[in-house]
């Protein structure tokens, strides 16, 4: 990489229930939240308004009343731009792509400073009603959806297969949920912060067998903003920053499921994308200090930790159970609390992962700080990790 991209600022609201109901007298307005986050993130970065030339937004949910929220916000902030202003969409990968595109604006020289930002509001819509839409995002609407598949039903089948192939147990899966809740208890941005036990996880009602309520992500609202710039500008700001040292992408050429039988729990796209990102950064998985992965369910964190080379294949569940992936362990994963406890407002989820990486690698993660954290990895995905976008980061203090 020539002139590298650096993250210099971040802001986010705590994930939770922010969306107002139709009948509420006082409404929560998306652009008001985003305007505040833009100001906070640019202050955190120490950059000026007139240095910003590109804004890459995540697509809002259809429940957001204000259409074209991206250009509306430009108007709210009177922010003339000479690079690009757009909204991106890529299913669960939406926020990772928004960040990636903001980095591109810097690499292409279209902007000295760019923002990757967005808001996801959906909690006032019931889970069953929201699923009417989300069920159409995974699989074929004419050949799969009529059977009743939902997004997490595919992950549930991963779990069943993983338990079958490796003799993994529900206790191992539960260990991921318990560990993530512990991490979330230390994160002010997290949605669920009260510690839980493995017994409690195993006692929850089944959602998609073998996964229970605490194995799957909660629903919630969130918004976040990241400031990226060139390495030169970052150096000049005189504050800790985070360099994007590697990037890899892979789409495996299938949508949710390949009709040519393959190993569905190998997450090959994540393996290939991460290899590319590690090579660009000049590191090995063993060099990483933490991983902040897109993993909607406990099983997904196990499988992606294996695909990223953080644990050997078939050992991800044992690694979680033995504390290797807990803060203070060999390779802490999801120090933010992960999607299961920090929360999963899905179109902005990866922005929260980068906020966590920016905090950790700048030494600002407080009680959950990974000691001397220098290298971190973040992922975004869609489908059953049919596509993966992986970034490797290095903190500079």
């Amino acid at each position: 990489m020539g002139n590298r991209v650096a993250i210099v600022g971040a802001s986010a609201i705590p994930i939770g229930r922010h969306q107002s109901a139709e009948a509420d007298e006082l409404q929560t307005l998306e652009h008001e939240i985003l305007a505040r986050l833009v100001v906070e993130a640019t202050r955190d970065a120490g950059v000026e308004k007139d240095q910003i030339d590109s804004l890459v937004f995540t697509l809002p949910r259809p429940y957001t009343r204000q259409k074209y929220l991206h250009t509306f916000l430009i108007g709210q902030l009177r922010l003339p731009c000479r690079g690009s202003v757009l909204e991106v969409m890529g299913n669960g990968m939406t926020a990772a792509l928004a960040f990636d595109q903001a980095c591109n604006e810097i690499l292409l020289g279209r902007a000295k400073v760019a923002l990757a930002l967005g808001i996801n509001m959906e909690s006032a819509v019931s889970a069953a009603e929201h699923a009417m839409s989300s069920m159409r995002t995974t699989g074929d609407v004419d050949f799969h959806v009529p059977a009743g598949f939902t997004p997490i039903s595919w992950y549930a089948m991963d779990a069943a297969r993983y338990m079958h192939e490796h003799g993994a147990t529900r206790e191992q899966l539960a260990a991921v949920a318990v560990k993530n809740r512990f991490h979330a208890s230390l994160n002010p941005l997290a949605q669920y912060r009260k510690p839980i036990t493995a017994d409690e996880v195993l006692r929850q009602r089944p959602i998609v067998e073998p996964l229970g309520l605490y194995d799957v992500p909660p629903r919630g609202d969130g918004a976040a903003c990241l400031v990226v710039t060139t390495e030169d500008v970052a150096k000049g700001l005189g504050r800790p920053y985070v360099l994007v040292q590697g990037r890899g992408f892979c789409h495996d050429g299938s949508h949710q499921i390949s009709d040519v039988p393959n190993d569905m729990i190998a997450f090959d796209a994540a393996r290939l994308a991460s290899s590319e990102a590690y090579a660009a950064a000049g590191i090995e998985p063993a060099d990483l200090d933490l991983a902040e992965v897109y993993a909607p369910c406990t099983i997904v964190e196990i499988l992606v930790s294996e695909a990223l080379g953080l644990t050997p294949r078939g050992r991800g569940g044992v690694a979680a159970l033995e504390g290797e992936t807990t803060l203070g362990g060999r390779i802490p994963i999801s120090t933010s609390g992960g999607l299961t406890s920090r929360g999963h407002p899905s179109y902005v989820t990866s922005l929260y992962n980068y906020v966590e990486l920016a905090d950790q690698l700048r030494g600002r993660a407080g009680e959950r700080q990974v000691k001397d954290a220098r290298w971190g990895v973040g992922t975004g995905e869609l489908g059953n990790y049919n596509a993966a976008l992986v970034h490797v980061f290095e903190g500079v203090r």
Partner: protein
Amino acid sequence: MLETLKMLSVRAYPPRVSEATLPFWSALREGRWMTTQCNDCNRQTFPPKAICPHCWSASVRWTDLSSQGELYSWTRVHAAPTIFAADAPYSVCIVDLDSGVRVACKLVERPGIDTRIGMAVEIVRLQYEDGDLFAARPLNR
């Protein structure tokens, strides 16, 4: 011929039918389990497609799919979208057909037989009041 199971309801979420997929649904109505096969590279694909995804040939023919296979994985869905809520809990699965094609579909469990990954399954036709769907069911052995 696929065995037909009569369903006493309409389909919760009926599939759309196009000119390209009509032969699949017409065959299913007669208990036949078919898909498209490429005339150039000779590979079957499922769901059926007018363009071969492997070599992009537009020359395809209709051939029989294997109606038996092995259960690759499955789940029982308890948290269902509104339109499927009345059916919950219900099961869905992934099957590797003996002829080397993988399909994802409903799973009709058999009372008294534990559903296990790796077990032999067969494809059945589900005849609803408004049209058909297909499912896998453990072989009775």
